[in-house]
Structures are given as structure tokens and as C-alpha cells.
């Protein structure tokens, strides 16, 4: 079994990556745009926030700046796809690769530590609650706000236009929706959320690292798929809650796999475990569909 600390640590990490999951949901499911930019925009958010915090900028402002940077990254991918008609997947890979260099430039070194710096969480540590609880609670509140905001947006006229763009672009244009603009908007929003996840990751873990982005997309996708497997297609709100629950369950599953001595897994096996979990998550719905039909 998991220790208390390991469990709440997994929940906290799951909540941080819930932002990634919601971002991935927006790109992959709402816009039908397989966007790998997130592998670059997650560490970008971490880098921007960490660097700004170390020079004394307010951590909330730093997180906002991280979101702007993420939105810019998404806009670049959208630009490559919309303006130059580069295949969506390839366009996002180009941005992702470019971001590895950009992130190094932003930080000036591969790793920035935030050990004694004031973060968004600092004011909440002195209130009597133990740190292991404060951190998931704090991130959890932000996740709830994000879920509600994205939910209300997707159920508005503007959000409906974005969903239509992903579902039937030809019909959307006939309804007066500028589908190119929707791709810009959707990818900017998606990557802003992912970058916010990166900024929170840096602040809860006390560092930003250029390599921390590797595999972000797979983790986000795993969360989305787990959520869909659990909740099915029953509306936007449940899909978003599914992203959050999926992200937390994913982290707990990873934590369990790593801490089960019988399995003999090490932290360095994480990528293998992730790949296996995502493969299982991808196969499960298909098996279920096969069984029901």
C-alpha cells in the first residue's frame, strides 16, 4: 500500500497534470487537432514561472506570464497549420522541438531551483494545515476553477463554435464560423492551460527542468482516456471531470506500480510503465465496445 505522503503526493501531481489533461482534451477532442506542442509548452510554463519568480516577480503574475507564453506556443502551431497548411501533427512537432531550445534560452541553464523563493503556495503554508494537504488542496481549488471556466466556455455560443469546428468544419463555415480563427483560439487556450500546469509543477516541486516535458502529451492523453472510460460521453462537464479524475487515478496507479516491491520497478522504469498504462487505457474502451456489440 501507499504511505499517506506518497498518496497525497500522487493526488497533487495528478491535479497539476489535470491542467494538461484539460488542455489535451481541448485540442484532441474538441478541436480534433492532435497537438504535441504540450511537450514543449509544459516545460515552457515551468521555465517562465521559475525564472520570473527567482527575479522577484509576484508568483501569480509569473503564472499568468507562463500562460501567455503557452498561448503563444499554441499560436505558433496553429499558424504553421492554418497559414502554411502543414499537417497538424507535424506542425505541433516542429513547435515542440523549437521549444526545447527556447526553454533553455528562457532559463539560461538546464535547471532552475525555487527552494527558498515565495511561490503561490507560500501564504497558505502557515495556516496550520500540514503541507502534504495544503498543496493538493491549493492546486485542487485552481483545478475546480479551471473546470468551471472551461465548461461554461464550451457551453457558450463561442465555445459551441469551437466544438462545431472540430466536429464538422464545412458545416461550421456555412454557419459563419471562421474555422481558422477557432484553431488559433483553441490551441492558444489549450497550451495556456498546459503551461499553467507547468508553472504549478515548478512551484509545487521547487524547480523547473528542461527535460520535465518529455512525455507530457502521453500523460495528458492517458488521463483523458481514463476519464472517458470511466464516464463515457455524457456531456462536457463530465468529460472535464473525467480529465481530472483520470489524471489523479493515473498518478496513483503509477505510484502503486512503483511502490509495489514485488514488481521490482525503479523510477527509471516510469516511461515503460506509462506506455503500458496508456496502451491498456487505449485498448480497454475498444474491448468494452467489442463486448457490448
Amino acid at each position: 500500500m501507499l504511505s499517506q505522503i506518497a498518496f497525497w503526493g500522487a493526488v497533487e501531481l495528478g491535479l497539476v497534470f489535470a491542467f494538461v489533461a484539460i488542455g489535451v482534451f481541448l485540442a484532441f477532442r474538441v478541436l480534433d487537432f492532435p497537438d504535441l506542442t504540450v511537450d514543449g509548452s509544459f516545460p515552457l510554463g515551468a521555465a517562465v514561472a521559475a525564472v520570473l519568480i527567482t527575479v522577484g516577480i509576484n508568483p501569480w503574475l509569473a503564472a499568468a506570464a507562463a500562460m501567455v507564453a503557452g498561448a503563444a506556443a499554441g499560436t505558433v502551431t496553429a499558424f504553421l497549420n492554418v497559414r502554411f497548411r502543414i499537417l497538424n501533427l507535424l506542425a505541433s512537432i516542429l513547435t515542440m522541438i523549437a521549444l526545447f531550445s527556447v526553454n533553455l534560452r528562457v532559463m539560461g541553464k538546464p535547471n532552475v531551483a525555487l527552494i527558498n523563493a515565495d511561490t503561490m503556495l507560500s501564504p497558505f503554508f502557515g495556516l496550520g494545515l500540514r503541507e502534504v494537504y495544503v498543496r493538493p488542496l491549493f492546486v485542487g481549488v485552481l483545478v475546480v476553477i479551471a473546470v468551471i471556466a472551461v465548461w461554461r466556455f464550451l457551453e457558450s455560443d463561442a465555445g459551441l463554435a469551437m466544438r462545431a469546428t472540430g466536429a464538422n468544419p464545412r458545416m461550421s463555415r456555412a454557419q459563419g464560423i471562421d474555422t481558422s480563427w477557432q484553431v488559433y483560439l483553441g490551441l492558444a487556450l489549450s497550451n495556456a492551460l498546459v503551461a499553467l500546469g507547468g508553472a504549478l509543477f515548478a512551484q509545487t516541486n521547487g524547480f523547473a527542468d528542461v527535460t520535465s516535458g518529455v512525455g507530457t502529451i502521453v500523460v495528458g492523453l492517458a488521463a483523458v482516456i481514463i476519464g472517458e472510460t470511466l464516464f463515457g460521453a455524457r456531456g462536457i462537464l463530465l468529460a472535464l471531470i473525467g480529465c481530472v479524475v483520470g489524471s489523479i487515478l493515473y498518478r496513483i496507479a503509477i505510484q502503486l506500480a512503483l511502490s509495489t516491491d514485488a514488481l521490482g520497478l525503479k523510477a527509471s522504469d516510469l516511461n515503460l510503465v506509462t506506455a503500458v498504462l496508456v496502451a491498456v487505457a487505449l485498448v480497454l474502451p475498444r474491448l468494452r465496445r467489442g463486448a457490448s456489440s
Partner: protein
Amino acid sequence: MIDLSNIHVTFGKGTPLQKEALKGVNLTIEEGSFVTVIGSNGAGKSTLLGVLAGDVLANEGKVMIGSTDVTRKSTSARAGLVARVFQDPLAGSCGSLSIEENLALATRRGERRGLRSALGPRRREIFRERIAELNLGLENRMKDRMDLLSGGQRQAVSLVMATMAGSDVLLLDEHTAALDPGMAEFIMKLTQRVVSERKLTTLMVTHSMRQALDFGHRTIMLHGGEIILDVSGDSRKDLQVEDLIAMFRKMRGETLDDDALLIG
């Protein structure tokens, strides 16, 4: 009002597959007039509707809808003026969205889409009423996904969607072709009602000579990218389906002769 002057459309210009789909089409349709369009496969009917909708930009000529020059406007930029129902029942709505969400999309056609909830109680009520008018029982399935509906039901909802927001022009491209005869008849009656109630300037492409003569005020026949027949009023009343079929035969005969000449 619609005014097309000297419309030329060439697909794949400069390639071996170059195809002149419209060759200097001139067409004026007055406000509120219902025009049926016939012609053999590849005659340029869909291209003509595409030029009006914005999917196809003319290489030459001018397209006016009402008092707006839309010649170079994109599909989405002119959507406020043009409502459409496609041949493919899947094409005109979003299968993964619910009936009411599709209607919500349609109410804002050609208008700014803000952060207001797409499905407030007022709108829901209006949508329900409009769908109930169809008498298909769909008003009790407003939250059902569109892809649970049959082709005919989807076309019926598409017609309602086409009239949710005001527009000058309604374009129908063989919108009953994919349906069984009973449903096709239902959709045609509905079309008739919608067009006369809302006084829409309408172009309807059809493969049925019967439909072409029975509905609307005027019939045009396209052939090889040109309008070769344009009848209305009394001369149209006198026209029989047999006459149209004879004209079709003649046209096909001519093309055969052309081909024979080429081969010979």
C-alpha cells in the same frame, strides 16, 4: 436578390485535369423567387451553388447577393446572407452535438458568438417549438445526439436550422436525393412551406424533372457550364416532364457526337 454576371470557374487551372465548370454564367433572380436547377451530372449545378455559398471563388465575374458584392468573400464571411442544406444528411449538422446544440449554432449564423450560454431557457423553448412544428416527435429528443437521427430527420432539422437566423438566400443541393421516397416527399413539402412562409430567394438543385417543374417559379437547365434553358411563367406551365427529358436526350446526343468527332 441574386445577381451573377459573367461567372467563369475553372478547376485545376494549368494542370492536365483543367476543367471549365462554369463558362460565363449570367443569372438574375429577384427577391423571394424560387428557382429550380436541373442538368446532367457534371453540368456545373453544384459549382453554381458553390459560387453563391463561397465554397468556390469565381475566376472571373461578379456575385451580388442583395446589395452586397460577395465575389471575394469567404464562406464564413457571407454566411449571414446564405442558408444551405446539403445533399448528404450528415454534412449539414454536427453528429456529435445534440439537436438543440445544432439549433443554437444555427441561430447565430453570420453573427458574433459571445460567452452567453448557448442554451438558455428562452432559446430552449423556441427551439422546442420550432422542432415540434415538424411533427416528427423530435421535440422530446432535443438532447439526443444528431447522429442518432435518420437521414430524413436530419434533413428536416437542417431545414429548420437554415431558417433559425434571417438570410437572403436559401441554397438546396439535391437535398432529398439521399432519402427514401416517402421522406423525400415530406422534406419537399416542408421546403415548400418554409420558402413561402419566409419569402426566401431559393435555388434548388434537383435530379427530378417532376420536382423541377412542380416546385418554384422558374426552372433553369445547365449543360457544360452554361445555362441552356430558362423558363418561367406561362411557358413553364406548358412544359411537360417529357419535354425536359427530350431536351436531356438531345444534349446527351450532342456530347456523344462531339466525342465521336474527337475519336474519329
